[in-house]
Structure formats: C-alpha cells, structure tokens
C-alpha cells in the first residue's frame, strides 16, 4: 500500500481560487469531470436498484401464497426477466463503474480519467438503454419473458420487446467497453510519480482486472445477441432448431460471457471490502500481493468454468468433469481472499461503524454463497438442483449479500469524503441489521425450497412449498423497506449534516483520505502527489 510523503493538492497562488463546476443542467449533460460522472453513475444505479427492487417486491407478493394472486404468468415471467437484467446491467455494474469513476483517479493520483469525453458518453448511453429495457413493458405482449439469459427458442418467438432488449444490451455493452478502456488506460498511464502497480490500493487492482474481463466478454455477448437478432429478422438459423440451428450453442456462447460476468460483478466488491476491513481493523491488509494474484487467478479461471451452468444439456462426461473440477479450483484463490480478510481483522483494533458492519456481513454471507456454489459445482447434485430455488438462493447470496452489501458498505465508507457530511450512524446501523435479517429470512429458506424441488420462474407452486415461500416474501418486504432507510439516510447526508473530517476513518490510508480535503475540490491533484 502506498505511503504519501507530502500533499500538494492546493499549492499557493491562483490554485486558491474556487474553481467549482458550471451550473444548471448543462453541468451534468456535458460534464467531463470524473466526480460528476461517478455521481451520475451512482444515482442511475440507485434509481435502477429501486426499479428492479420494486419488481422483486411484486414477484414476492405474487409468491406470498400458492395460486395466481396478482399477475398472469406471462407478466410474471417478464418481471423475473427484466428484474434480472435491470439489477445486473442497470444497478450492480453501473454502481461499480460509479465507484471506479470516483476513486480510480483519486487513488492513483491522477487529475481525471484518461478520456473524459469518452467517459461522459459511456454514461449517457445508459439512459436510452434503460428506456428501451423498461419501455418494453409497454409493447404488445409485454417485456421479454425468457429469463435474463435470453435463451432461444423462446426468445425468438416473442415480440418487439425482445428487439428492444437486444438493442439495450448492445448499448450497455458498448458503454461497458468504453468505460473499461478508460479505466485501464487511466490506471496504466495516469498514475502519479512513485505509484507503482504494487502500491495501488486493492480497489484499483480489482477494477484493472475487471476491466480486462469486460473487454474480453462483452463482445461475446454482443455477438450472441446479434445472432439472435438475425435469427429473428434476417432468416438465419443460428439457434433455431427448426432451421437446422442449435439452441445449445447459444447457451455455450452466453455462458462464456455469463460466468466472467459473475466475477465482473464481484471482483470490484472484493476491492471495496479490501479497503474497508483494514480501515476499521486499523491494520494493513494482510497478504496484499497474494490478494492481487488471487484476483487475477479468479479472473483467468472464470473463462474455463462456463459449462457448470449447463450440466443438464447432455455434455460428454469428460466435459462435465472438466467443468466441475475447474469450478472447484476457483475456491482456492477465493479461499485465499477470505483467509486474508479474516487475518486482516485478527487482533485488529476493530470498531463496527456501518461500513464495517456491511463488510463483515459481506464476509459471512458471501462465503455461504460460495459454499452453495461448490455444492452446485458437483455434477450429480447440480443435475438434481438445476433450475430450482436452490440456484436462486445461491446466486442471491453472491450478488446481494456479496456485490450489493459491498456497494452499500462502500457508499457509507466514502460518502463522508464525497459529500463532506457524515451520515446518520444510528440509521446506518438500523439499515444494516434490518437488511441482514430481511436478507436471510428472504433467501435462506429458498435453499430448502430448492432442495424440496421447487422450480424457479413459476408464478404458482404446489401447496408443500407454501410456508417457506411466505417466510421468503416476509423477508423480502423487510429487506425492501430497509433500503428506503438507506435512501433517506443518503439523501439527507448529501443535503446537509455534520461536517466530515478530512480523514473520517482513522485507518483509511489511500490517497483520497491522506491527501485531499473534505469535501474535495472540483478538480483534484492539480499537482501530482509524490508517492514514496
């Protein structure tokens, strides 16, 4: 980890002038400032999180008891499909890009991203994509109802909403690739003097690796959905069995993108957790170098495990075995990370403010998600549990208590620096405990439902599943309500409140805490910091 020897953020003379942002809507439309763009990404992500969360509440309301209560099955399927797409591409990924925009330049000592205008464009592509995705509900037949994986042949048979979804995915992919190019070039070319790669904070490292993953797999998704489009409208039969095509090929291509995508959503979370835990344990991160190598190992292994999503399609036994063992191998670098986080806390002078609570919550619950992933990696077990609620429980433990808890913890951690105000700690802790309880009541019973054989993506179910579904829905409403507390806390923090200190967290040691005032000026590192 880097140690700064002196700060020169505001040298004497003209730099003392206030050089704030332009005013009005044009500030946001035309901005090339990484902090503004980071803020816009985070606000967009928050809006999409509540849109996708509302869909989740509707899904759980329908599943509260057996029978069809609120929706017809087609609309229910649209809800589960768009909920997945919105949460993945609209909430989780843009949130991490928002963090990257805010933090990467600050943590490497750069004045801004390498390509500020490209950065602006990357963000504004998200808006038409979101309009297309959500607007597809208004088309005849409703939004895409094939599941977020967009499997043919179902997706080839639906109406114009699928075309809107495909276009949205193309726009989101283009935005991700441009954002990734910007992040990689910033990290590789814009670092302050003395900021070597192995001195970079782990958040920057995780994003460097994530950005490479995005560039490698987003074009694969783009290719897959382009072929879907030509199957639908231009007479090709890539995936259409009626024309000699192969739907299984889509699954291979999709999951070659899809599994690295899982790590795209979790590696930056690892980076955030690796910043929060040392700050509140008041110790340096244990095993910094091994954390970097473990992150890279996870990223590389993510390219050779896609087949574990499709053990039931009838691959040869050797193929199944390869994907099973490769998947289990990922537990090794992931275990290194979990060990290092625990060792960081070991004998630390820990305090449990809200960011630390979410980080520890992440550590406990993400590990449960990892273990249930190992269960699903075992071919005969997966064949039994495939497409059941056990899978739903597993990936929500990874993506909600993993990615989302890290995002929320990161927002609590950095909001004092970003806004200049301290959030309400009591409300933060209330938010954490309600989230923790609500989340587990929501998703832990889904393991039982899956083990008992309840399939996913159904609006109605057999009576034997009634009780755990009711508990799951109650948990969902608690979890959903607790996010409103978060929203209130963050809005009131941004609007005012107790001033935050320059170094609000005693153990935080990256450049934004050690070198920059709180709140930060509009332009930072006008003179590059020198890192020892």
């Amino acid at each position, binding site marked *: 980890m880097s140690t700064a020897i002196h700060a020169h953020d505001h040298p004497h003379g*003209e*730099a003392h*002038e206030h*050089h704030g942002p332009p005013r009005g809507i044009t500030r946001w439309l035309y901005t090339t*400032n990484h902090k503004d763009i980071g803020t816009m990404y985070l606000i967009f992500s928050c809006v999409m999180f509540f849109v996708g969360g509302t869909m989740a509440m509707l899904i759980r309301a329908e599943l509260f008891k057996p029978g069809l209560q609120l929706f017809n099955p087609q609309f229910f399927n649209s809800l589960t499909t768009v909920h997945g797409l919105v949460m993945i591409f609209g909430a989780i990924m843009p949130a991490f890009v928002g963090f990257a925009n805010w933090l990467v330049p600050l943590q490497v000592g750069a*004045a*801004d991203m*390498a*390509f500020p205008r490209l950065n602006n464009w990357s963000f504004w592509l998200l808006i038409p994509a979101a309009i297309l995705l959500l607007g597809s509900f208004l088309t005849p037949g409703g939004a895409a109802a094939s599941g977020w994986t967009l499997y043919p042949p179902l997706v080839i048979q639906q109406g114009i909403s699928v075309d809107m979804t495909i276009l949205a995915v193309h726009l989101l992919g283009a935005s991700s*690739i441009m954002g*990734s*190019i*910007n992040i*990689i*070039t*910033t990290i*590789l*070319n*814009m670092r302050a003097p003395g900021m070597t790669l192995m001195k970079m904070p782990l958040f920057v490292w995780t994003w460097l690796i994530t950005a490479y993953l995005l*560039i*490698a797999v*987003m*074009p*694969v998704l*783009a*290719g897959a959905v*382009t*072929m879907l489009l030509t199957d639908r409208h231009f007479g*090709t*039969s*890539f995936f259409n069995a009626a024309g000699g*095509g192969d739907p299984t*090929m889509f699954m291979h*291509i999709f999951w070659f993108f899809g599994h690295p995508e899982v790590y795209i959503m979790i590696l930056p979370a690892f980076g955030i957790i690796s910043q929060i835990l040392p700050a509140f344990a008041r110790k340096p991160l244990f095993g910094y170098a091994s954390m970097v190598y473990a992150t890279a190992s996870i990223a590389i292994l993510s390219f050779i495990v896609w087949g574990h999503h499709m053990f039931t399609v009838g691959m040869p036994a050797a193929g199944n075995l390869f994907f099973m063992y490769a998947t289990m191998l990922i537990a090794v670098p992931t275990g290194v990370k979990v060990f290092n986080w625990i060792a960081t806390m070991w004998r630390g002078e820990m305090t449990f403010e809200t960011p630390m609570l979410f980080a520890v919550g992440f550590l406990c619950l993400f590990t449960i998600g990892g273990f249930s992933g190992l269960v699903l990696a075992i071919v005969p077990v997966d064949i039994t549990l495939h497409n059941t609620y056990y899978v739903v429980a597993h990936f929500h433990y990874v993506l909600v208590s993993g990615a989302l808890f890290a995002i929320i913890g990161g927002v609590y951690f950095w909001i004092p620096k970003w806004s200049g105000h301290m959030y309400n700690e009591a409300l933060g802790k209330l938010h954490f405990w309600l989230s923790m309880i609500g989340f587990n009541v929501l998703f832990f019973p889904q393991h039982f439902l899956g083990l008992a054989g309840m399939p996913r993506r159904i609006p109605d179910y057999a009576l034997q599943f009634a009780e755990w579904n009711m508990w799951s829905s109650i948990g969902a409403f608690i979890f959903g309500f607790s996010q409103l507390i978060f929203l209130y806390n963050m809005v009131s923090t941004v609007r005012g409140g107790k001033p935050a200190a320059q170094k609000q967290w005693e153990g935080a040691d990256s450049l934004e805490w050690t070198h920059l005032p709180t709140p930060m000026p509009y*332009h930072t*590192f*006008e*003179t*590059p910091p020198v890192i020892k």
Partner: protein
Amino acid sequence: MARREPTREQKRRALVSALALAGLAVAIYLVMMFKVFVAK
C-alpha cells in the same frame, strides 16, 4: 486553474493503449461472428 492536463507523452501512451484495447474488443466480436458464420 482548470484541471491538470496529462502530459503529451501520457496522452500518446493512453491513446495507443485505448486503440489496442478497442481493437481487441472488435477482434473478439468479429472472430466469434466469422467463426459461427463459417461453421453454419
């Protein structure tokens, strides 16, 4: 004082990196499409 601009050398290196990465993304897309088209 406005934002500190990168040096000419930083700009040059960033541009080379960006073009290489964009080329990589386009190449992955095209290789996959051509492979599937030829296979079909």
